[in-house]
């Protein structure tokens, strides 16, 4: 066997071009299904882990998948808005802790990087997701925010920096102004979608929403460009008075909200039941009583989604199996032609006293070496692909 491997290596080195072509064909044929499998496996693990750790999601009726993915990943917008009243309802039942999620807006781009989602929530969220502060502190005042690990890295944010929310509509001159938020801290890496966003409280997001606002005292403004006319106590201000809204210790008290707080919008509510019984009761309550809201079990929704992914995976497997079959046939053809071209060499070996078994072993060793090399390349590139593509794929999917 040792001699067969030695002769096979010599032969492959001699027929370098042919060997490399076959090895690359094999590697490519193996790489595709392997990479798909690895990526889907990782995708399955990630999405399942996040879903499994989220007991219940409550939100507007509509697409279950959209709502679940929004509550878990903050990316896709849910089918409709829910209200803070819904969160209070959950809390009032005493069956679960309600964590509001309001993730409708993004930050403005910064340092050439596109903006990230702004997630309004309550301090319970940090405890629930076990998010730890790497530097700074958790937001405590209106207008404060804390950056997820990757978001902070990308946008080059550190405690003490500020970041603007992206305006909802650039053409609405009378409309909402961006909110300049104070970055009070940066979270530790959680290796989850929480790394990709900026967290603040729901009230701050409602300010971005225009539900809440403050008032600027123009009469005390030192910037004369902002003041068009002063007539006694009446001051006429320029439209450019507020390029953005900023909540400072000076104007914090002026901020207030209009309307019924129970009607203030949220995009989802995470419900953390205190027991299995509470969980079942809560699900039952939503399945029978509430005409506008729904209660989801994220693992079930993700399982539905994964069943779709599984069907896609099967399709990929069938395609890969066909590709493997075609490659095998081509490989068999190449080997047959190669044996024909090397007939003289085989004949010499046979005439010298080599058995047919040894000749087959020699050819088998060549094939095995090429398969081995192709497999090593396929596994290595699949692993590298997994490292580089996994994140992009997740972002592409959500």
């Amino acid at each position, binding site marked *: 066997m040792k*001699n067969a491997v*030695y*002769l096979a290596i*010599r*032969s492959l*080195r*001699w*027929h370098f071009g042919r060997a490399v072509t076959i090895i690359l064909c094999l590697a490519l044929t193996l790489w595709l299904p392997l990479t798909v499998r690895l990526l889907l496996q990782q995708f399955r693990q990630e999405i399942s882990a996040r879903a499994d750790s989220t007991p219940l999601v409550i939100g507007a009726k509509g697409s279950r998948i959209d709502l679940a993915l929004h509550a878990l990943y903050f990316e896709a917008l849910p089918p409709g808005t829910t209200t803070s009243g819904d969160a209070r309802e959950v809390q009032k039942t005493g069956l679960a802790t309600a964590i509001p999620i309001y993730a409708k807006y993004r930050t403005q781009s910064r340092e050439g990087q596109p903006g990230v989602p702004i997630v309004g929530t309550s301090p319970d969220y940090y405890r629930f997701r076990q998010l730890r502060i790497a530097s700074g502190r958790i937001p405590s005042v209106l207008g404060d925010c804390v950056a997820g690990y990757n978001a902070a890295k990308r946008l080059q944010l550190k405690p003490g920096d500020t970041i603007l929310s992206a305006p909802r509509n650039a053409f609405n001159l009378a409309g909402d102004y961006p909110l300049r938020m104070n970055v009070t801290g940066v979270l530790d890496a959680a290796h989850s979608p929480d790394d990709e966003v900026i967290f603040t409280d729901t009230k701050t997001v409602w300010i971005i929403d225009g539900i809440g606002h403050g008032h600027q005292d123009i009469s005390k403004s030192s910037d004369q460009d902002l003041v068009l006319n002063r007539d006694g106590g009446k001051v006429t201000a320029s439209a450019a008075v507020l390029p953005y809204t900023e909540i400072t210790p000076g104007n914090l008290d002026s901020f207030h909200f209009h309307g019924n707080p129970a009607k203030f919008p949220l995009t989802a509510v995470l419900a953390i039941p205190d027991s299995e019984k509470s969980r079942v009761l809560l699900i039952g309550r939503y399945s029978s009583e509430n005409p506008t809201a729904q209660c989801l079990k994220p693992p079930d929704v993700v399982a539905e989604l994964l069943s779709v992914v599984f069907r896609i995976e099967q399709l990929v497997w069938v395609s890969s199996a066909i590709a493997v079959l075609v490659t095998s046939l081509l490989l068999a053809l190449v080997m047959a032609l190669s044996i024909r071209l090397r007939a*003289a*060499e085989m*004949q*010499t*070996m046979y*005439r*010298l*006293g*080599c*058995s047919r*078994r*040894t000749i087959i072993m020699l050819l088998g060793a060549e094939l095995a070496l090429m398969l081995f090399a192709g497999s090593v390349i396929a596994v290595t590139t699949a692993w590298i692909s997994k490292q580089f593509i996994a994140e992009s794929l997740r972002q592409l999917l959500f």
Partner: protein
Amino acid sequence: MIELSEIRFAYPADSFDLHIPHLSIPSGQAVAVTGRSGCGKTTLLNLLAGILLPSQGTLNIDEICVSQLTDAQRREFRLQKIGLVFQDFQLIDYLSVLDNVLLPCRISSTIVLNSKHRDRAAELLKRVGLSLHVTKSVTRLSQGERQRVAICRALLLNPVLLLADEPTGNLDPRLSNEILQLLLSQARETGATIVTVTHDHSLLPAFDRVIPFETFRTSDHGKAAK
């Protein structure tokens, strides 16, 4: 001693028929077999090498009845007791000079390649003036050098019988003589019997004995070029 007795051989679906009533070659003798193209000289070498099996008769080499050995036994016998030199050298292009010489050890299922074989190969290559080319690819050698490598390969395992099928057929006259002398001297040194098929009558004086193939009865010579 090589002894052939009442050997008959015929190719299937062919009218070629070879009949050797008796042929005896003493050990260490250098024999040249001459004859027209297609008369069956190569068939004789193949019979002696055990590549072909006679349909009748007995073939003894060194008191071993080759015609009674099994396929596997004949292969090992050929590998260990017989050295083969071909007209077109039949070296393996992807192997170095040294590896070509060591090839019989690498393809044998019973011989384990060891340092003695390597030393023997190096010594043979030194003797034929190729000690500086051991790691070279055989494709980079001249025709004469390639045939020397083939001779070293044939002599590696100290064969009792050296069979050469027109070993100088592809070489110019000066080189032909040189290679033949080399072959004969190496065979004599190891005490091997040598049977060479040749068309070149100018080389015949170098042999101990010349056997004109016409002494054997064959039919349909023209179709016998297998």
